[in-house]
């Protein structure tokens, strides 16, 4: 039971980053390989604010989200948009370039050493129905849950959320009703960067902060997104949680895998899903009408 809750906590982090990947894939049709590095950069910003500038945790958290939103939007306007006219492959390569660039930038500014990050939640455990559960895990799940609910409200009940969905599913049609599609995509990149930042900041206290913080997480997030269906936001969340719990249980109870072989298991999940059901659990296979 304890392992399930811990799995849900790490799973919610995967889910958050997976949701970022799904948002961008739905809108632009590409996997943003730089999503993880963007999140690492965000996490460093939060770390600098709390460690070097004496901010307390939550103001730094909120400020980082805002900065990430602006950063994500700027990346779309400045780097992605000029390349959108070309092939999808070109955009994918641009995101890989961005990955290398941000990774280099982070190493240049903050150096490569591993840093401890304070957690907003106490690390002690509380006992619920005879099960010891860490407050940090509950806090992590809570933050991601709140984010997902907020996003859902945005997409379901606001005019701009509806316009963003319209722009993602049918851009040509959306322009005809007056939606400024490019700006909606920019907003989407901003939101995705926010989701990534949340994942990074929640992961850093237990994984420690260094420039490769998100490298493995991005693989887990990608596995979660593929498992759930790369175009399905619900799938990203279910996929993330399933993967988190599954990996944790396998890591604990299957001796030969242990904690070290989790990453290969995630990669195996990607492979198996792509082989057996490429559209994922919640995805629909693409039907092109001619």
């Amino acid at each position, binding site marked *: 039971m304890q392992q399930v809750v811990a799995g849900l906590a790490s799973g919610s982090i995967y889910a958050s980053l997976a949701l970022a990947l799904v948002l961008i894939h739905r809108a632009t049709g590409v996997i943003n390989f730089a999503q993880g590095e963007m999140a690492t950069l965000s996490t460093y910003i939060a770390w600098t604010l709390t460690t070097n500038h004496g901010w307390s945790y939550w103001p730094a958290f909120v400020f980082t989200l805002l900065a990430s939103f602006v950063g994500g939007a700027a990346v779309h306007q400045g780097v992605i948009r000029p390349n959108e006219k070309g092939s999808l492959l070109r955009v994918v390569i641009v995101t890989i370039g961005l990955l290398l660039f941000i990774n280099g930038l982070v190493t240049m500014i903050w150096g490569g050493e591993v840093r401890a990050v304070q957690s907003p939640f106490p690390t002690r455990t509380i006992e619920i129905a005879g099960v010891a559960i860490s407050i940090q895990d509950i806090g992590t799940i809570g933050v991601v849950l709140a984010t997902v609910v907020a996003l859902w409200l945005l997409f379901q009940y606001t005019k701009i959320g509806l316009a963003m969905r*319209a722009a993602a*599913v049918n851009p040509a*049609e*959306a322009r*005809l*009703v*007056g939606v400024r599609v490019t700006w909606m995509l920019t907003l989407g990149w901003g939101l995705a960067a926010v989701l990534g930042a949340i994942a990074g900041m929640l992961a850093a206290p237990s994984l420690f902060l260094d420039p490769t913080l998100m490298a493995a997480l991005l693989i887990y997030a990608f596995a979660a997104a593929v498992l759930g269906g790369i175009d399905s936001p619900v799938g990203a969340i279910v996929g993330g949680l399933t993967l988190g719990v599954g990996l944790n249980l396998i890591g604990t109870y299957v001796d030969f895998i242990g904690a070290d072989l989790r990453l290969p298991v995630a990669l195996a999940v990607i492979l198996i899903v792509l082989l057996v059901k490429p559209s994922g659990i919640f995805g629909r296979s693409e039907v092109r009408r001619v």
Partner: protein
Amino acid sequence: MSALLELEGVEARYGPVRALHGVSLEVPEGSIVAVLGANGAGKTTTLRSVSGTVRRTGKVTFDGKPLRGGPEAVARAGIAHVPEGRGTFTELTVVENLRLGAYVRRERDLKDDIDRIAHWFPWIPERRNQAAGTLSGGEQQMLALARALMAKPRLLMLDEPSLGLAPMIVREIFRIVRELNEQDGLTVLVVEQDARIALDTASRAYVLEVGRVAVAGSSEELERNESVRRSYLGY
């Protein structure tokens, strides 16, 4: 009657292929104007050149002012374009499609507008939460029309509303268009292959042939025109 929309020497091309060779036409305020012609004559491109979804040269004047910009700007100017092949967001619900139709307007409360739409399409309210893609072809075409009306447009452009629909449904759609014109004074520019129903509905029509206006006149004149009758009405 002054012209709400006026095209003067409009040319448009898809890459190296020129689709329109200088089309001029006028849509008077409060009228229904039809554009007829065979496949590939440039009917759809004519509408696209107005809504800014194809690159064009020449003059397009709307309400006395030159019409510029992409489709977002054209939608804001008060032109609703229902494209060929059911312009709906199939993954979104009926009511979400309607909300998107009103996207360019400032009003937040769309209840009255949806009631108004229900007057023309009584089936819409009860199916408001159904995904548009699960509607029948005729219903999707009606939803596309309803969505365009949500924008309260000054000019409605319809591209082949009859495409692939049963004759009864086509008649129903054109009946609604005519009533909207008579009761609300809505100006309509409709592109149609079914010349008979188009001429019955419109007061004026243009026949396009390979990207040029071949014949123009009132619907009665065109119905009497020997070559139009033979080529497009089939008698």
